[in-house]
């Protein structure tokens, strides 16, 4: 079937100016994806000579919104109202709509967080505009059309998408896809306090409680895995691999012999007779790389292998092959990561 598109009324693109970033936060703690999007927005805005905006909604967020001025945002629009205390779909959509009507940004970028993933579509439908989900690459044409590239079909296909006849153009982006800019010591740009009538902010949803979640214990759910193989000499040495895993925001996993030794639980074993994992990053330490092991992890996005035997089969599966003794690498790496964390904190 051929779908024929009729001529569409052209939108006046010159009336829409600026790249806006939604400031994703919980109780004033800004989600780092926000800074990554500001970095991307600046790069895009520069190409078309537009300003960069941030929009933040919440309650008692005075000092937090000032932090944004250290990231070269031209204007931060702030809706500070009791009704906007926690994310609630209807009032947040209303305030956002108010911002779009008044400021008319050409594009809006939002983090693909649990909040962004529901607020963005609600707003897009309200504005009757397009929304591209989970973009991994964003670029902009001279005529201000946003070039949006995203995976679909579970990552088996990439699609390049344009929103040529509608403004604003909307896109969500996952955390850790774009690069965060450096924080500048000097603050620049201005904060604009926006008001909206409380009557407009009614909600048919009330948040009753918020409970911190226990850390996910399944290795399949972890984005980062550090795998212990038989190259680990004694059980106590697992502590350093656990520590490394924690520092990288991940979990420890193992090969079958390590599990059979009773050093780690069966649910942490990767491989044919264990779990199949597909993390963003996997670091194997002292793992030879038998086919039974690699069958459970060879679709991982980034595979880093440490083995002192340069002929170890794991190096055929790995993207980065570190030929060396794990005991010469892991302890130093841990202390350097820790040192780096204290500097930037």
């Amino acid at each position, binding site marked *: *079937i051929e*779908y*024929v*598109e*009729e001529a569409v009324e052209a939108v006046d693109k010159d009336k829409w100016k600026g790249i806006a970033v939604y400031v994703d936060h919980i109780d004033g703690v800004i989600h780092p994806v926000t800074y990554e999007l500001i970095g991307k927005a600046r790069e895009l805005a520069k190409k078309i000579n537009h300003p960069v905006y941030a929009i933040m909604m919440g309650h008692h967020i005075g000092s937090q919104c000032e932090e944004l001025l250290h990231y070269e945002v031209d204007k931060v629009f702030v809706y500070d109202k009791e009704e906007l205390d926690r994310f609630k*779909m*209807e009032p947040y959509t209303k305030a956002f709509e108010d911002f779009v009507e008044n400021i008319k940004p050409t594009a809006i970028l939002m983090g693909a*967080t*649990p909040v962004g*993933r*529901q607020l963005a*579509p*609600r707003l*897009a*439908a*309200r504005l*009757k505009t*397009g*929304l591209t*989900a*989970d973009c991994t690459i964003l670029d902009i044409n001279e005529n201000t059309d946003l070039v949006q590239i995203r*995976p*679909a*079909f*579970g*990552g*088996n*296909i990439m*699609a*390049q998408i*344009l*929103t040529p006849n509608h403004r604003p153009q909307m896109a969500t982006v996952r955390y850790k896809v774009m*690069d965060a800019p450096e924080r500048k010591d000097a603050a620049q740009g201005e904060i604009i306090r926006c008001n909206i009538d409380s009557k407009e902010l009614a*909600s*048919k*949803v009330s948040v*009753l*409680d*918020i*409970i*911190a*979640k226990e850390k996910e214990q399944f290795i399949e759910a972890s984005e980062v895995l550090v795998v212990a193989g038989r190259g680990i000499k004694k059980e106590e040495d697992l502590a350093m691999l656990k520590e490394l895993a924690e*520092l*990288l*925001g991940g979990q420890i996993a193992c090969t079958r012999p390590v599990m059979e030794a009773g050093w780690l639980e069966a649910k942490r074993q990767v491989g044919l007779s264990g779990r199949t994992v597909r993390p963003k990053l996997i670091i194997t330490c002292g793992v030879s790389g038998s086919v039974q092991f690699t069958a459970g992890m060879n679709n991982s996005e*980034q595979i880093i292998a*440490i083995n002192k035997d*340069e002929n170890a089969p794991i190096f055929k599966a*790995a*993207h*980065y*092959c*570190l030929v*060396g003794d794990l005991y*010469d*690498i892991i302890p*130093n790496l841990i202390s*350097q*990561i820790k040192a*780096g964390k204290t500097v930037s904190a």
Partner: protein
Amino acid sequence: MNILVCIKQVPDSNKVEVDPVTGVLKRNGVESKMNPYDLYAIETALRIKEKLGGSITALTMGPNQAAGVIREAFAMGVDHGVLISDRKFGGADVLATSYTISQGIKKSGTYDLILCGKQTTDGDTAQVGPEVAEWLGIPSLSNVSKVTELKAGSMVVEMDMTHEIEIAEIEYPCLLAVDKDIFIPRLPSFVKKQETKDREIRVITLADLEDREEKHYGLNGSPTQVQRIFPPEVNNHREVWNGEGSELTGRLLSKLKELKFA
């Protein structure tokens, strides 16, 4: 309780390929099935009905053969089926899809609760649910991982917000997009399948809708345009690093920083 469940027919495998010459998806010979995430929405509806009574309608928008997923829903215990189908609806993005579905919903009845899956395995946007709710002007919640309480005018649910669980109360009528694992979906029953094989599926076309303006549907009603599709880059990258322990550590640290893990 009048419950509507939105379900979509998707290709049986998401290992699709792009024709290198034409740049279009090779769909030939690919079997279809119900979007697996929608099974959880159906199960949720069935559990709620077991508690409160009422009826469940499954609705899908798609070509005629999409009626297959309605039959599957019948075999799980769903009472009624609606197929929104018209050639004019083809090529729709999320905005046009959700608008068409909302128009079809208005035509087909009134519901206290609308349930959607978390996402599909083909388009994979997770945007249809919240957009349908906006078109209907009703509240919605996504990431619903548990139904805690069913009250007369509202329900209490839990939402999985990555690092925390949020408990919220939402008034009817409303829309929920449920997570995988909210309940374990039951298997279709052969007996029910036989019983329902002649059950009527209501078909709604453009001519039946309140808004019949063609420009609002299908490709014409879609602000986003897919310009091209292509296979993702495969990671064939391979680097071998030799050297002293300290040198390897330094290189590893830089790589971890570059990949944004450290």
